[in-house]
C-alpha cells in the first residue's frame, strides 16, 4: 500500500484500485445525464457507429476510476485515525495528461483499475508536492480500456 503523504511516494510504485462492473443501467444513466450521444444510449444506433455496439461514456469510465481511488484513500485515512495518527490534509487535483480510451467499455464488463506513480515534483509551496499517477483500466479479457495520468497535490510531511 502506498502511503498518503507526498514523501510516501516513489516513482514506479504500483497499487491495485479494485474492479468495477459496468451495468447497462449505469451506462445509460450516466449517458443520459452527461453524454447523451447515440452510441452511449441506444443499442441500434450504437451498432451502426464506429463502436459497433453500446458502450460507456469515457467520462463514466474515468469517474468510476476516481471513485475507486478515493475509496482506497478513505479506507487508509480511517485506518490512520484508528491508530491515533492524523491523516494528511487532502490535496486537490490539478489536471490530467494523455487520457486515452483504446477500447470500448460494454455493458457487463468488469474493469480492473491500477495506478503507478509516474512523477514527483516539489511545488513553490513547501507544504504541497505534485504527484503524477498513471491510472489504467483493463477489462476481463486483459484489454486496456482507459489510461490517464492524474496530477494531484499531496501534503508534505516535512511542512
Amino acid at each position, binding site marked *: 500500500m502506498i502511503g498518503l503523504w507526498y514523501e510516501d511516494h516513489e516513482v514506479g510504485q504500483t497499487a491495485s484500485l479494485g474492479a468495477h462492473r459496468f451495468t447497462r443501467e449505469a451506462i445509460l444513466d450516466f449517458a443520459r445525464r452527461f453524454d*447523451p450521444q447515440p452510441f452511449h444510449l441506444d443499442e441500434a444506433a450504437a451498432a451502426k457507429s464506429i463502436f459497433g455496439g453500446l458502450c460507456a461514456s469515457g467520462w463514466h469510465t474515468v*469517474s*468510476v476510476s476516481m471513485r475507486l481511488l*478515493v475509496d482506497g484513500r478513505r479506507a487508509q485515512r480511517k485506518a490512520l485515525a484508528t491508530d491515533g495518527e492524523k491523516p494528511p490534509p487532502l490535496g*486537490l487535483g490539478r*489536471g490530467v495528461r494523455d487520457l486515452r480510451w483504446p477500447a470500448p467499455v460494454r455493458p457487463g464488463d468488469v474493469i480492473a483499475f491500477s495506478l503507478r506513480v509516474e512523477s514527483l515534483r516539489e511545488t513553490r509551496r513547501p507544504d504541497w508536492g505534485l504527484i503524477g499517477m498513471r491510472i489504467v483500466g483493463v477489462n476481463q479479457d486483459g484489454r486496456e480500456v482507459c489510461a490517464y495520468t492524474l496530477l494531484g*497535490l499531496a501534503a508534505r510531511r516535512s511542512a
Partner: protein
Amino acid sequence: MDRLYFEDFPVGEVVEFGDRIVTAEEIVEFAREFDPQPFHLDEAAARESMAGGLIASGWHSAALMMRINCDEVFLRSSAQGSPGIESIDWLKPVRPGDRLSVRRMTLAARPSRSRPDIGVVEMRFELMNQNHEVVMRQQGSVFFGRRPNGEARK
C-alpha cells in the same frame, strides 16, 4: 439545423456557447457517486480544506462540459467519439451557483489515414464561469464523419 461534418470545423475557428448553472445539490450528488471527498460533499468540511468552500469534482466539471458540448455541437454532428485527450487543467474551482459556458477552438484537422469516411479534429475547449474566467481547459481530438458525397455544404 444542418448536420455538422468534419468539413465544418475550419482550423482557427473560435466559438462560444452554452449556459448551465451548477447547483450545490448536483455537485454533492456527483461527488457521492464518483468522488466522495469532503470538499465536494460538505460545505462546512470544505471550508476547512484547501478548497475554502464546496467545489465541484474536476470530473464533474469535465462531465458538465461534455454535456454542454453534446447539446450544442456533438448531437447535431457526425461525432464518433474521441481517441483521447492530451490534457485537462483544472485552473479554478467551480462553485455552487456558477454559470458555465464553453469556448471551443479548432486547432488542427486531418482526414483519417485508415478510415476514409472519418476525420480527426483537434480542439481546445475552455470551460468558463460567469466572470468569463477559464475554470478548466481541455485539449484533445474528436472523430467526425466526413460529409457524404453529394450532400450540399450548409
